[in-house]
């Protein structure tokens, strides 16, 4: 598709010399001055456009050329020249100095679409946009419609674009005018087919033929007012405006009809109707709506329009694209109804029956899943007001959709967005939310790169004390879930026996009854059945071939990030008991991870980081879990298989196993821990590492030495034992190779550290205060502490007095 020819064109355009460009621009200038605006001009303008867009730096055109192009845009009736001049001018900067922007384009009405596009893109300030909107709205008031196709149609899109960026651009009168116009176009568009424009009919008699009424999408004649779901041979102008009005309606309502909009100079009655205690059940009926002020009238007409759309969507459309449009209209209609009900709570009672029956109609059809999401939002916003049971919706949102439609990327995006925006409310009102994480994680497991960003925001809400442990296990096994989902999909798409196909052992395992339970646990919909399964190791073995499936690898890359978020969230909600449990899980799972390259290492890194953090936060955890921590630290194989985690466990033991951290820490405990670590240190420094294992990093050895020194400083009987080892280390002279370290500089570093510790331990009292400092000194209080504060105060005063 994108060939070398195109790339060389771009290169030429980027590298054009300034002199050549100037010559080219002058040629164009001459062509413009001549009256012949033929093919050569078109071609040249196209090339000029390419040159201007080829680099990211903007060029300026010569002022003369700019003026000629502006006048071409204004005066030409050939659409191609309008398009090209607008495009070229858009890519350059407005002329400097007088006449900064192109507002003189507006002096010659009608303003073409391309002229308006230029004005919008070149606007320098809000007042420019304001002036443009005024001009457009003046065109709406009173002037009769011209014979040209769609003269006013672009007014609404332009205003809508401007409103997206600055809602304050229209004043109250303009808002009222547009509200009235919108009401007319939405509700009172003609129901006869437009007969003006030629439908390309072969026979001359088309002009004399009477246009019939418009039809519905299933072919039957329209029985009510015109909407976007009505068809005809061709359309009149007000029918076009009907389409445009509905297209901008939701944004218009959101911009100007929000309840919180304190600047609204609408009726005070509208605010009164939101009062909780006296909500009027008798809302204005359509017959009396003519008496309502413009805002309320628009609301009422919007309500009727959406009601009609919902009815029309029940018809079976003949064309597939129309069926898709019906779904989009349903989504929009429910959103508009939601807006309208948020503004006027009394409309909830009229609206709910429609929405409820719509929900009932669509809930069993997975093809309409994306329509159910705005309905869910509606239920969340107004379900309490109307005292309606919302269970059926939550069962779909948290149950059926994630388990069956996890591979629909658009649904995933919209559902997760819905959850993200409503987290607070869902946490309060919908208990299924926090218990459905096994289901919600399916979106993440299937397409991690696309939705991980949503989960970064969503995960903290899913961390609750009751489900934290199960959630941790689920996160660690997320790649397994990916593999299981893939197998589930394959299993349902392909026949039981694939003739001659490549058999996946994991697929056979998936289908075999003896392993079914394992997979069913992974694919469960709700939390609460158990934290994890006993035969997790078996499951990992069954899925070993999945380790290089791209989806599984992508998923594995997102897990460490989510674990960080998990741990940061869990410390805010967990008590000591839960944190102890988590440390146990951490230690257990460190050897029970699906074997994907780099995955284990990354998980260990995250574990190490958070172990450190947790123990620093709650030092008594170390004493609580000393037994399990020692199990890991006392076993030499772990030095080689879990180096990172081992180092950190040793560190936390050395740092926090003391009486000042927890009074339950006894001398026996310190001694037994010491002995365990001593044994490991002796073992790794007395012989070479096992075959095929690299030497342990120097950090491991120094951490062990430091930990032993710290423990010894707390129980002085142990000091001689450490000192003996450290003094032996000192005897290692330069140049001697040791079996446990391959790099000479590393050996020097280790030996140096050993010397420091040895000299420190010669003075037990000093060693104790250095290696086991009281908590006071490790959390400085800066200005709160009299001693340190003095220096700070003096410095501040001198800075103030010396500033002159």
């Amino acid at each position, binding site marked *: 598709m994108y060939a070398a020819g195109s790339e060389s064109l771009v290169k030429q355009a980027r590298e054009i010399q300034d002199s050549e460009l100037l010559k080219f621009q002058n040629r164009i200038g001459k062509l413009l001055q001549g009256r012949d605006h033929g093919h050569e001009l078109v071609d040249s303008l196209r090339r000029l456009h390419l040159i201007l867009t080829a680099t990211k730096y903007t060029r300026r055109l010569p002022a003369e050329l700019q003026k000629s192009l502006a006048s071409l845009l204004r005066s030409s009736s050939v659409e191609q020249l309008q398009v090209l001049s607008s495009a070229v001018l858009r890519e350059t900067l407005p002329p400097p100095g007088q006449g900064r922007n192109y507002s003189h384009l507006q002096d010659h009405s009608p303003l073409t679409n391309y002229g308006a596009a230029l004005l919008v893109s070149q*606007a320098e300030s809000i007042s420019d946009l304001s002036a443009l909107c005024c001009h457009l709205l003046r065109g709406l008031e009173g002037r009769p419609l011209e014979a040209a196709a769609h003269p006013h149609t672009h007014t609404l899109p332009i205003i809508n*674009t*401007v409103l997206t960026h600055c809602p304050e651009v229209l004043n109250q009168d303009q808002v009222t005018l547009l509200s009235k116009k919108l009401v007319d176009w939405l509700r009172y568009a003609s129901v006869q087919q437009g007969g003006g424009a030629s439908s*390309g009919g072969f026979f001359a008699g088309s002009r004399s033929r009477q246009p019939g009424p418009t039809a519905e999408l299933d072919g039957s004649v329209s029985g009510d007012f015109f909407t976007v779901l009505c068809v005809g041979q061709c359309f009149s102008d007000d029918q076009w405006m009907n389409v445009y009005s509905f*297209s901008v309606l939701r944004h218009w309502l959101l911009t100007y009809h929000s309840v919180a909009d304190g600047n609204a100079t609408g009726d005070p009655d509208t605010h009164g109707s939101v009062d909780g205690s006296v909500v009027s059940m008798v809302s204005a009926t359509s017959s009396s709506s003519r008496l309502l002020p413009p805002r309320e009238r628009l609301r009422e007409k919007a309500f009727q329009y959406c009601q009609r759309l919902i009815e029309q969507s029940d018809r079976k459309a003949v064309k597939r694209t129309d069926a898709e449009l019906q779904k989009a209209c349903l989504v929009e209609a429910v959103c508009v109804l939601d807006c309208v009900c948020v503004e006027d709570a009394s409309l909830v009672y009229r609206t709910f029956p429609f929405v409820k029956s719509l929900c009932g109609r669509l809930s069993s059809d997975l093809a309409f899943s994306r329509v159910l999401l705005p309905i869910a939002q509606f239920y969340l916003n107004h379900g309490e007001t109307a005292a309606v049971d919302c269970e059926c919706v939550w069962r779909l949102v948290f149950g059926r959709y994630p388990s069956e439609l996890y591979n629909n990327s658009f649904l995933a995006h919209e559902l997760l967005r819905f959850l993200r925006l409503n987290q607070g409310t869902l946490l309060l009102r919908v208990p299924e939310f926090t218990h459905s994480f096994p289901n919600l994680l399916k979106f993440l497991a299937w397409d991690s790169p*696309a939705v991980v960003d949503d989960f970064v925001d969503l995960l903290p809400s899913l961390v609750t004390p009751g489900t934290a442990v199960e959630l941790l296990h689920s996160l660690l096994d997320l790649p397994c879930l990916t593999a299981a989902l893939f197998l589930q999909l394959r299993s349902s798409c392909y026949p039981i026996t694939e003739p001659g196909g490549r058999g996946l052992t994991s697929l056979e395992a998936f289908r075999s009854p003896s392993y079914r339970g394992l997979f069913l646990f992974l694919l469960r919909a709700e939390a609460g059945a158990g934290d994890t399964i006993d035969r997790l190791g078996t499951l990992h073995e069954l899925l070993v071939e999945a380790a290089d499936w791209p989806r599984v690898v992508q998923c594995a890359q997102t897990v460490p990030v989510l674990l960080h978020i998990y741990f940061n969230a869990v410390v805010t909600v967990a008590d000591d008991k839960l944190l102890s449990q988590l440390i146990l899980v951490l230690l257990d799972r460190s050897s029970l991870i699906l074997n994907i390259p780099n995955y284990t290492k990354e998980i260990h890194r995250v574990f190490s980081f958070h172990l450190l953090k947790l123990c620093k936060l709650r030092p008594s955890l170390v004493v609580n879990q000393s037994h399990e921590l020692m199990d890991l630290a006392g076993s030499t194989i772990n030095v080689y298989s879990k180096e990172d985690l081992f180092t950190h466990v040793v560190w936390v033991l050395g740092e926090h196993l003391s009486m000042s951290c927890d009074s339950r820490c006894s001398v026996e405990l310190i001694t037994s821990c010491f002995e365990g670590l001593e044994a490991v240190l002796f073992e790794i420094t007395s012989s070479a590492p096992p075959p095929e294992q690299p030497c342990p990093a120097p950090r491991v050895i120094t951490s062990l030495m430091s930990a032993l020194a710290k423990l010894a400083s707390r129980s002085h009987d142990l000091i001689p034992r450490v000192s003996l080892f450290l003094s032996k280390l000192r005897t290692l002279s330069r140049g001697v190779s040791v079996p446990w370290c391959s790099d000479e500089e590393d050996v020097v570093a280790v030996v140096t550290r050993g010397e420091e510790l040895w000299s420190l331990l010669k003075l037990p009292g000093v060693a104790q205060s250095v290696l086991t400092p009281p908590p006071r000194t490790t959390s400085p209080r800066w200005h709160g502490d009299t001693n340190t504060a003095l220096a700070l105060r003096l410095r501040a005063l001198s800075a103030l007095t010396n500033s002159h």
Partner: protein
Amino acid sequence: MVHSFLIHTVCPIATLASGESRILYSRVFGPEESVLTADELNSEERRLLQREKLAVVARKVRTAVSLSREAAGRVMVEVVLGEELVALQEADSGVLRLRDGDPFLGEKSALWLGVQSLGFVLVCEAHENLMLAEGTLRNLTRNCLEQLRMLGPGSEVLLKSDRIDVLLDRMLPHGQLLFLNHRFANSLEKEVTAYMAK
């Protein structure tokens, strides 16, 4: 409201670093973002910023397309001129969340369609009707593929970009998504075809 429409490469380009994308067509609807904030940039700097933001989006979509294709594990089938509908059916699609500030002001959603070696992107406001946007994007892509003969080796997309402008003017005027049933859509497409014939 659609913020912008982009067409860019999603295949490796020899003259660019890997992961980089060449933008073949870009159109931003609406005024420049930084005009309305208090940024003290002159107009050149504003333009540059806007183009760089679009380049960021193109890069993100390129990554998303390649990750999606890798995960799906499908083999790319070469499609030629005349097989536009097949190409569209085979296309990968998805939607990316663009956080507030990364790179645009306010959260946005980038809908993308990866057709062979090109990506077509609509950057929409976050609360937009994505079903409608998806349908519009597919329609636009089909029209671009057909009218600009993009499945062939030519460079019309670069040299005849006014055709895309006209297409956008009808189907997505000033970035407004329209609820068009097949009759309205046919009527607009007839106008577009009449323009292309000139």
